[in-house]
Structure formats: C-alpha cells, structure tokens
C-alpha cells in the first residue's frame, strides 16, 4: 500500500451522539422495539448493533434482539481480492414477520448490503428490512440507500474511510486516508 496519512474526521463523542440519535430514530420509525431484530454485519457492524441495542434499551427499557449476519459467501466481488475470512452468522430468533435492521459501519458501493439481502433471504422472510450505517460515504454502484445514517461524508472514491471502535481498535474514531501518488 502507498503511504497515506489518516485524518480523524469524527471522535468518540460524535460517534456516541450519532448512535444515540440513530437509536431514537429506529425506535420512532418502528413504533417501539417489539418485533425488532438488529443484525450486525461482521466485524464492526456487529459491534455497532450491540451499541444500538444498548442505546435502545436505555430509551425503551426493553431488550432488543441482536444477531450477526455474515455476507462473505454471498459477495459478488470475491474474485477481486484475496480470500476473505468467513465470519459468524447467528440469528437470535426466527425472522419471519420481524423487522430486521441491518447494521454496518460504512456504506460505500452497496455491494455488501446487496450480499446481505441475499444472505437474509436464506434465513427467513422478514416483514421489512431497514439499513442502519454509521457513515454513508457515497459512490454507490447499486440502487441501495440507508434508512438510518450517522453521518454523510464526502470522500473521494479512492479514499479509505475507516471506523475504529474501542472494542477492537482501542478507541472510537472515523478516519479518512487518501493514498498518495
């Protein structure tokens, strides 16, 4: 990889505020949390789903079901990069007639979410599926939009946008790095 310097565009406080706001929005749009299942897309989507669930609990004082949905096997771009490690899929309860909120860290081309919709089809038939992402950085290659967005970010296509979360990265931050040369 070429040298690049990562610029922090969002810190931990800003991330926390965004998650709280998204939690409120999810509860409001869905009129409560009873039929709600949050499915995080590994790796950081799973962590964000947990944080959203925590936030919803503090708002509604109820437990919201969370799970994990690995999409690796459904990707249509596998041949473009070295073999990816396969993540875990864990569905907390049957999804039929539930409202599923897919959670991921960054929405970019839309291919991950397309793969997630394919993967979801194999495990159940939810009443509706929504998408929550912390960062929407544009440059979509497919007609996919998020329902709950932490922040829209204008970044050139070649830039790398990374979400760092304390659970695995030691601190919370959103960074942008642009490869030099």
């Amino acid at each position, binding site marked *: 990889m070429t040298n690049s310097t990562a610029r922090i565009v969002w810190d931990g406080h800003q991330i926390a505020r965004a998650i709280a706001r998204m939690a409120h929005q999810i509860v409001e749009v869905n009129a409560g949390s009873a039929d709600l299942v949050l499915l995080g897309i590994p790796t950081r989507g799973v962590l964000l789903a947990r944080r959203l669930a925590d936030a919803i609990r503090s708002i509604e004082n109820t437990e919201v079901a969370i799970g994990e949905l690995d999409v690796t*096997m*459904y990707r249509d771009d*596998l041949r473009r990069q070295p073999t990816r490690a396969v993540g875990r899929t864990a569905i907390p309860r049957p999804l039929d007639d539930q409202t599923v909120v897919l959670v991921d860290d960054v929405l970019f081309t839309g291919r991950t979410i397309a793969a997630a919709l394919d993967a979801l089809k194999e495990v159940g038939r939810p009443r509706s599926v929504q998408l929550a992402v912390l960062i929407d950085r544009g440059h979509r290659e497919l007609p996919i939009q998020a329902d709950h967005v932490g922040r829209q970010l204008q970044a050139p296509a070649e830039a790398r946008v990374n979400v760092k979360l304390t659970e695995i990265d030691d601190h919370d931050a959103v960074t942008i790095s642009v490869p030099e040369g």
Partner: protein
Amino acid sequence: MRHLLSAADLSLAEVTSILDTADEMHTIQQRQIKKLPTLRGRTVINMFFEDSTRTRTSFELAGKWMSADTINISAKGSSTSKGESLRDTMLTLDAMGTDCFVIRHGSSGAVAQAAGWVRAHVVNAGDGTHEHPTQALLDAFAMRRHLGGGGAEAFAGKKIAIVGDLLHSRVVRSNVLLQRTLGSEVTLVAPPTLLPTGVDEWGVAVTNDFDEVIHTADVVMMLRVQRERMYGGFFPTEREYAELYGLTPERLARLKPGAAICHPGPMNRGLEISSEAADAANSLILEQVTAGVSVRMSVLYHLLGGSSE
C-alpha cells in the same frame, strides 16, 4: 491457497481458518436451503481415476452447495502405461477452462504431478497410499467438536491412536502431518508387517500392541484393512487380526470414558471394528461423513473464494 496436495502444506493458521469456516458451513447445512451463491460461475471437475462413492459424493455436494458447476468424471481404468498419459488427460481438461480439479488417483504422487501440469487449482482427494488431506481435515473437524470446540488448543496434549493398515493408508499419512501441526500426541498401532518403512522417523510413537494405548487414548481412529492390497499375506488370518488389532467389544469397554471412535470408512465390520464399537454412543463415524461436506465446502472456498494470486 493454490492447491491442497498434502496436509503438510497447511500452516496452523490455515488449518484453523479451514476448520472455522467449516463450522459456518456446518451451520448452513442445518438450514432448509443449503445452497450458497459463493462459487457461481466456477467450474469444478471431480476426476476419479479410482472409485469412491463417499468422497466423490461429498465433493460433489460441496461444489453444488457452493453453486459451482460441478462435473464428475470417472476415469477408472484409463491409467495404464498404454493408455493416454496422465499429462495429456489433464492438459485437455485444463484447456476447457476448468477452475479446480478434485483428483482421486490410485497412484501415489499422481495428484501432485497433475498439479504441476495445469493452470487450475488442484485438490488431492486421495492419491494411492500417499495422502488424503481433506479426510484428515474432516477427522480434525469432527474431533475438535467432540473435544470441546475452540481453536487449535482443543488438540494440545490430546492422545490419538491410529490403528490398522498403516502401510497402505493415505489417511494415516495426512493425519500424522495434520495432527503434528495441531499439537496432539499421535501413537500408531499396527502389526510390524503393516508399518511403512521409516515410520520411526515420522515423529510419532509406534507400537505393535493395541492394548498398550487402549485405555489412555482420547481418540481411537480405526483404519480399514485394505483387502485388495493384501499381496503376499501381511498377517496370518482375519480372525487373528481382529483379535489382535480390532476394536472388539472387550477393547471398547476398556476405552477411557468419553474417548471418541473414528473410522474413515468404508468399514469392515467384524474385522478392524466390531459393530458394537461402530455404533457406540461415542462413535464419530457418521459425524465424520457430515463433516466431510462442510470441510470440503470450506476447502473449495479457500481455493476458489478469492482472487488467484
């Protein structure tokens, strides 16, 4: 990963990745819809120069459940010095744009030779009396689940006895190599006539006395007596073999509590394994078969699921 030819090719990290992915595949197999789109547009040719219903079916399901175009070729009988050369056979099919060959061959080394001639990925589905790496992987998969799951630490210090016709077994060679990577303690048990030359240099314990290890093993893996290879009388009679080296009901009773029983199949019931042992509660034999598909899906994914370097 370019090819899977030998269990010795796999690092601990690769074995762990293959087994972890196989765990996910195993979960998917419990679903009603088992098919994944992962290998859409990829062509896998199962070339079986030697019959094997079990392994061929397992690879065929693995390919199909991953959406690869999977073709079976039974090339039995074509491997003679008078027939088309192995090189020509492989070059012909490779030229058709095959992505992966799964090859079973009656000759040791034939799969490695084939891999040297083709552009496609190659999986060794058993070559002669040499290796059968996916069998060793599925054995490890079934054992890991039995030993309590987790990563490689599940195998640390575990005692595995592999018993029977070691001379003609490709399963034992791959298992010794893989278990060495995983860190278990392997003891090989066989009559002296069925020990490969130089087995004492394999870095594992060797004994001619099954009863020496029967009560300490965590896993007992019984190997098939290959009647078709019994040239020149390796032991006096099947009765004597069953008594000295079979997993008889008496030996079954002396197993350590919770010890697992494995057999790569097909079994000679009453010869190397009694029906009581094959059907015992702690027998992993059917789980090995189920594991076969999951592990082979994982192997195909590791070979074909990314860009070719």
